[in-house]
Structures are given as structure tokens and as C-alpha cells.
């Protein structure tokens, strides 16, 4: 409805109200991030005395960042987190999309049951199986490897991915897929070249939904890969949080640095949410 949009845009009161609401929402959403960022650059005393004040000449300090870089291998932790998150997302999207395509496209015996079985995982938290998973990882010698985490997160993300993607794939025009078949394309080409680009917005949604919980997870890194060389960022930051003393400078600095990579990933995925290539395909 471009007509309505432009009419709304022309009315200055509506425009102001709309922008006002959006700006307030943005401020509320960004406030905690802002507080973390400014406090990560302050001395410990200043953090507690005036948490909302900006760092000035007197209170400015990079002690938190120094601690983070001295204790433990921050860069390695960051790298581990990135590898685990990106690899898990890749496998979730690849296998999720393939399973979704099979469920949406092919009529076979047990299609419905298979779909239900795959969706069941949405309702059952994977942590219930932690003990069994740990036993399995021990048996396969995967404990203290990044593969252990990648496999678990892939399993954890697949149910929702299959559920969302199969819904979207059902909406991809049958005519388009059939045109590909008549022109002699293989089912793989139809899947990768015709269908996947059309469900890109859904893929981006699935990626964003899965990314944050994986990045922030403490549970599985602690149980499956607590070794120094496989520590993730979240796990690595825990050394600064003690039962009695917490090094707030270090915690805030580590958090500030942990936000950045997720933001970059988020921007990449949200770009994909913008349709464009799809228009004009059919009709």
C-alpha cells in the first residue's frame, strides 16, 4: 500500500509522533548497552558512586580492559565463541533448510509424523538430556572440543528451524520449482538456486533467533568444553565473577567486547531480511 504510506509520511504530526515513538524505543533498548559501555571505562569507585555519569578525566580508567587481556586468553575465547556460533548457525540453516524442503516438497509415507517428530524438540529443552549428552561426548572423545558444542547447538536449533523454514517453503511457488524440473534442473539445483534465495528472509530470522542464545550460553561450555583452549567468551568471563568479590571493571569490559561481534553478525543477517530479488519471480 504505497499510497497509504506516502499519505502518512506527508502529515507532519504523524511523522513526528512516529519518529518520537521509535526514538524512545531505541533509547530504552540501547540504555543498558550504553551503561555497560561507559562504566567499562571508569574506575571501580566511580562505577558505584555515579553509575550513570560519563567517564571524565578523573574517573577514566582502562583497568578493566587490562585485567581482561592479562587474565586468560581473551582473543582465544572470542575466537572460540565465533567459531562455535558461526558453525552452529551454518549447520542449523543447512540441515534445517534441507529437512524443511523435503517435508514441504515431497509426498512420502510418514511425512506428517516426521514433521511432528522434528518439531517436538521445540517443546523439550535440550538441557534435560545433558547427562546423556555428556556420556555420549565422553564415549566419542569429543569432550573439550569445539565440535561438542557445535553438535549440541545444531541439535538444539534444528527443530525451530525446520518448523519455520518448512512453513515458508510451502509458500514458494510450485510453478517455479516445476519450471526448473521441466528445464532439467536437479532437485539440488532447484533447492539451492531457486528455493533458498526466496526463503532468505526466513533463514535470516532463524539465524537471529539462534545466534544470541548460542553466543550467551554458559551451560554447555561449562559442562562439555571447560578446558582453557576451548573456553568460550561467556565461560571465560566467569573468572571475574566470584562468590564474594566480583571484578566489575573486568566484567563490564568483557561484556562490552562481547557485544561487538554479535552486533556485526546481527547487521549481516538483518540485511538479508530485506527482500528485493524476489519480486517479479512470479505473477
Amino acid at each position, binding site marked *: 500500500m504505497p499510497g497509504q504510506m506516502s499519505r502518512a509520511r506527508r502529515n507532519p504530526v504523524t511523522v513526528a509522533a512516529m519518529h518520537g515513538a521509535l526514538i524512545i524505543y531505541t533509547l530504552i533498548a540501547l540504555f543498558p548497552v550504553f551503561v555497560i559501555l561507559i562504566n567499562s571505562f571508569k574506575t571501580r569507585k566511580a562505577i558505584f558512586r555515579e553509575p550513570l555519569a560519563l567517564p571524565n578525566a578523573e574517573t577514566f580508567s582502562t583497568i578493566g580492559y587490562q585485567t581482561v587481556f592479562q587474565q586468560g586468553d581473551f582473543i582465544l575465547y572470542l575466537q572460540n565463541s565465533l567459531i562455535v556460533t558461526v558453525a552452529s548457525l551454518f549447520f542449523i540453516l543447512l540441515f534445517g533448510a534441507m529437512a524443511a524442503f523435503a517435508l514441504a516438497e515431497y509426498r512420502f509415507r510418514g511425512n506428517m509424523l516426521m514433521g511432528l517428530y522434528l518439531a517436538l524438540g521445540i517443546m523439550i529443552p535440550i538441557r534435560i538430556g545433558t547427562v546423556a549428552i555428556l556420556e555420549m561426548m565422553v564415549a566419542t572423545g569429543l569432550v573439550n572440543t569445539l565440535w561438542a558444542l557445535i553438535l549440541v547447538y545444531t541439535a538444539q536449533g534444528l527443530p525451530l528451524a525446520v518448523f519455520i523454514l518448512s512453513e515458508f517453503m510451502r509458500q514458494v*511457488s510450485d*510453478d*517455479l520449482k*516445476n*519450471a*526448473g*524440473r*521441466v*528445464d*532439467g*534442473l536437479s532437485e539440488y539445483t532447484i533447492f539451492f*538456486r*531457486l528455493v533458498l*534465495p*526466496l526463503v532468505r528472509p526466513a533463514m535470516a530470522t532463524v539465524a537471529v533467533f539462534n545466534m544470541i542464545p548460542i553466543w550467551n550460553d554458559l551451560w554447555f561450555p561449562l559442562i562439555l568444553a571447560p578446558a582453557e583452549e576451548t573456553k568460550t567468551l561467556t565461560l571465560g568471563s566467569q573468572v571475574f565473577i566470584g562468590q564474594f568479590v566480583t571484578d566489575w571493571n573486568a566484567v563490564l569490559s568483557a561484556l562490552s567486547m562481547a557485544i561487538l561481534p554479535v552486533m556485526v553478525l546481527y547487521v549481516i543477517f538483518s540485511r538479508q531480511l530485506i527482500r528485493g*530479488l*524476489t*519480486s*517479479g*519471480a*512470479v*505473477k
Partner: protein
Amino acid sequence: MTALKLTNLSKSFGQTEVLRDINLTVEEGEFVVFVGPSGCGKSTLLRVIAGLEDATSGTVEIAGKVVTRVPPAKRGIAMVFQSYALYPHLTVEGNMGLSLKQEGQPKAEISARIAKAAAMLSLDTYLARRPAELSGGQRQRVAIGRAIVREPDLFLFDEPLSNLDAALRMNTRIEIANLHRSLKASMVYVTHDQTEAMTLADKIVVFRDGRVEQIGSPMELYNSPANQFVAGFLGAPSMNFVPANMLGGPKSQIIGIRPEHLRLAETGPLSGTVQHVERLGGDTNLLIQIGQPDLLTVRLFGQHDMAVDTAVHVDFDKSESFVLDAEGQRLENTPPE
């Protein structure tokens, strides 16, 4: 040689029978139109012919060969889909050339065939564009071009005009007719629009509920429909059906009279009041209330000043009417000339 032969073809989706025992042939070079109301199984039949669905029983022969186990790309067919179904990531040229590339044709041959098809469809200047940058009519022509370059034994069209506006529909209809003349190819064309069927077809196959109702040339079907469904489906405005007892016949029969065969008269077997007048310029349609649920349509040539609520009498030639039994089957004893 026959281009297409269907023998005892049936198709069910689970419990629902969509196609029932279909037998028909398409001769080489023939333009055959499958026509029927929406949901009667025309697209399903086309997909079975193309190999995109398996038949539940029966055989499909294309150019003399049974193709039950042959994949769509190797059946010697090309299909134009209702929704165009162009590849969004490819240019017009890429869309038209993809099937040839898949077949492994040499580059020179591919560009020669694309150039020929593009010239035929006046798409020369759009070859580098993507589907998103084309109008609806142009997209439809690209879809047709994609079929032409394959030089198939059999063209399959699935309601290719249904997404176009009225003016464009007429132009494209004529273009498709020209295409058939110049390519001399065998074509199967699916539509729910009786005008398209009448104007394009060498042979019409009328479908209802997945069954063939009648097969014949447009004029054969118009002049001698086998039953009430075919009689009512072909011809616009559609045929009037009057209980025979209103015309002195037996109660169980129905008389079918086309609107153009009715005329106003001083006296006549039918009488009623004019309820609505449609003035089309060339024709005038009167809708007359004759005391039964359906209004009687009378089509008069030229322009007529007729007021609503006028009492009129309507007459017709018995030889131009059809006698149908209670089930709607045509009774043979009234051969209209």
C-alpha cells in the same frame, strides 16, 4: 503421428479422485484446448502429461513413446505456467537459455535459438533485464520464449493469459494463435475461459470434475453439445434452459435455447417482463423474468430502446433448440441444423 495420447488415465490424491479415466489424442500440429471450470483438474492433467505428477493408472504417450518412466526434461515438452514462473536470479536471456544449457547444447546454437525466439516475441531489447524489471505482458512473453527455444514436440500452456488485463489478453491470444500457425507445433492449452477455447482451438476438450464431457471442434460443440453442461459452458451469454412443460412438452425434459436464437414477437410460447437491459453497443441483452428461478436471456443484434418492466413475448425456432432429459443428456431426436 499423434503428438499426445492419453489412455485410461486416472489420478487420485489420497482418497480424492481428481482425474477419472481420461482418453484423448492430440494430432501432430493440432491446437487442443482443455476447458472446464476452476478446480476440475486441468492443471493436474497438464502436470501428469509433463511428468511432474505420476498418474495413478493409465498411460501417457508423447510422440509415439510411452513416457511413464521419463523425467519431465526428457519428454520433449515445454510448459508455460500460469504464474510465469521465471527464474528471478537470471536475465531474460538466462531464463530462455537455461534448458538448452542443461541439455548441453553448444553456445552458438543456444544464442541463435534465443535470438530467433526473442525476435518472434519482440523481446530483443530486453534480453539483459531480470524478470523484476519487466511488465506482466513482457514476463508472459519471456515464459513463452522459454518454451519456444526448446523446439519441443508438444507445448503445454496452463492458463497463460489469466494474469493479464483484458486488452493485453486479447493481443496475447492473437500472438499465441500466430505462434501456432508459424511454428506448426502441437499445443495443449488449458483455460477456464470459453472465449479463449472457442477462438484458439482446433479441437476442444470439455472437462467437468476430472472427466471428459465432450471432445470436438469449437463449432461441433457449439452446434451439437452432448449435454446440458457443455451447452451451458460454451457460448456467451450462456444458453437458456427452460422446463419443457412451459413449452407444451413433457415435464421431465428441458429445452435449451441460445440467447441469439430467441427473438421478440407479437405472440410467442414464452412471455414475461423485462427485468434488466444490458446495452453493449453492438448487441443488447434482455434479461426476462418468465416465472422460473433463472432469468431468460435474449440477445438482440444492434441497439434497442427497451424499458425495464415492459411485458414481452419471446419466440424461437424449434430447429435451433435442444431437448435434454432430466439428467441433462441431450436427446437425439432433435437434430438442430
